[in-house]
C-alpha cells in the first residue's frame, strides 16, 4: 500500500515537473488570456473589478508580444485567479456587508 502511494506521488511529481518544463505556445496563451478576460468581464458586470487584474492582464499581453509565452500564460492565469477572487468577493458581499452596519 505504502509502495503504491509512493509510486503515485513520484509519478505526480514527475508529471508536474514535466508540465512545468513544457513550453507554452501562442495558442496556450490565447486560451488562458481569453479565460482571464471572460472572468474579468464578469467582475465588471458586478461593478467589482480589481486594478491588479488589469495589471496582470497587461503584463501577460506584454510578455506575449515579446514572444515569452510561458510568462504570458502564467500572467494570464494569475489574472484569471484575481478576477475569480473579485467575483467571489462581490457575491459573498451581497449579504456579508450587513455585518458591518451600525445599528
Amino acid at each position: 500500500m505504502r509502495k503504491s502511494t509512493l509510486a503515485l506521488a513520484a509519478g505526480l511529481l514527475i508529471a508536474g515537473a514535466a508540465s512545468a518544463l513544457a513550453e507554452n505556445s501562442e495558442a496556450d496563451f490565447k486560451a488562458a488570456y481569453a479565460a482571464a478576460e471572460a472572468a474579468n468581464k464578469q467582475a465588471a458586470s458586478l461593478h467589482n473589478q480589481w486594478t491588479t487584474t488589469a495589471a496582470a492582464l497587461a503584463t501577460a499581453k506584454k510578455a506575449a508580444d515579446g514572444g515569452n509565452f510561458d510568462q504570458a500564460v502564467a500572467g494570464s492565469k494569475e489574472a484569471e485567479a484575481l478576477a475569480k477572487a473579485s467575483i467571489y468577493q462581490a457575491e459573498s458581499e451581497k449579504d456579508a456587508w450587513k455585518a458591518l452596519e451600525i445599528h
Partner: protein
Amino acid sequence: MRSAIHLASAALALAMLSLGAAQVAAAADTPDPAADAKAFQKFFTDKFPKVKLDDFVNGPYSMNEDMHRQWEEKEQFPPYDFSLDLGKEMFAKPFKNGKSYADCFPNQGIGIRQNYPVFDEKEGKVVTLELALNRCREANGEAPFSYVKDDMAALTAYMAFTSRGKPFDIKIPSDPRALEAYENGKRYFYTRRGQLNFSCASCHVQNPGERIRAEVLAPALGILNAMPIYRSEWGGMGTISRRFTTCNSQIRGVPLEPQSDEYRDLEYYLSYVSNGLPISGPGARP
C-alpha cells in the same frame, strides 16, 4: 370537546406568535433612515466622547489635540483660498448666452450647499451638487467640467463657503425610489471591495483616528461636510468625486465613473447620516 378547544386555542396562540415574530423580522428589515442617522451619530460620539458633535466635520483634525492645533494654524492662511477666489469669479461670470449658474439654482445658488444631494422625483434619481452644476452648464450650451479636476472643485468650494455653518439638511421624500437610493448608498458604504478587501466603513467607521501609513483616518460622520478639500497629499483641490474614486483605487478596486448611480447614492447616504452637522467646506486635509 374541551381538549378540542384547548388545541384550537394553542394553535391560535402559536399562529399569533409566529405572526408577531414575522412582523419583528419585517420591522428589522424595513429601512429607517432617521433611526440609522441617530445610531450613526451615537456610534461616533460614544467612540470619541471628547469630540463635540459639530467638530467631526474637521475630519482627522478633530481626532487629537496636536492635529487640531495644526488645523487652527492652517486656517490662518488656508490653502484652499486660491480655489475659493477662482470659484467665486467663475460663479459670477455669465455663460455665452448671458445666463449664469445663479439661474439654475434656488436662492441664486447662494447658501444652498447643505441641501445637496437632492432626490429628483421626476428623474427618480439622486442629483448631487457637482452633477447639478454640470447640468446647468450643458443646459446653457457650455461643455461640462471634469468631476475630478480644479474647475469643479473651485465652483463647489465657493458654493460650500456660502453655506458655511448651515447644517446638512438632506431630505428623503416619501418615494420608494428615494429610499432605495438611500439603501443602495448604505450598501455601497459597507461593502468590501478591491484586492485589499476594504469597505468605506473599514477605514472610516472601524478605524477613524488610527493611522494608515502616514495618514490619520477621518471619521465617516461629517466627512462630506468639509468637501471639497485641499489635500497636501494631492497638492491641490479635490471634489467628492475625486475622493470616492481615489478611495477605490487605493484599495486596488477599479473606480466607477464619477457621478455613477452608485457614487450618487453613496453621497446621498453619507450626507443624510450627517444631517444636523454644519457645512465647513472648503476644507484642508493633510
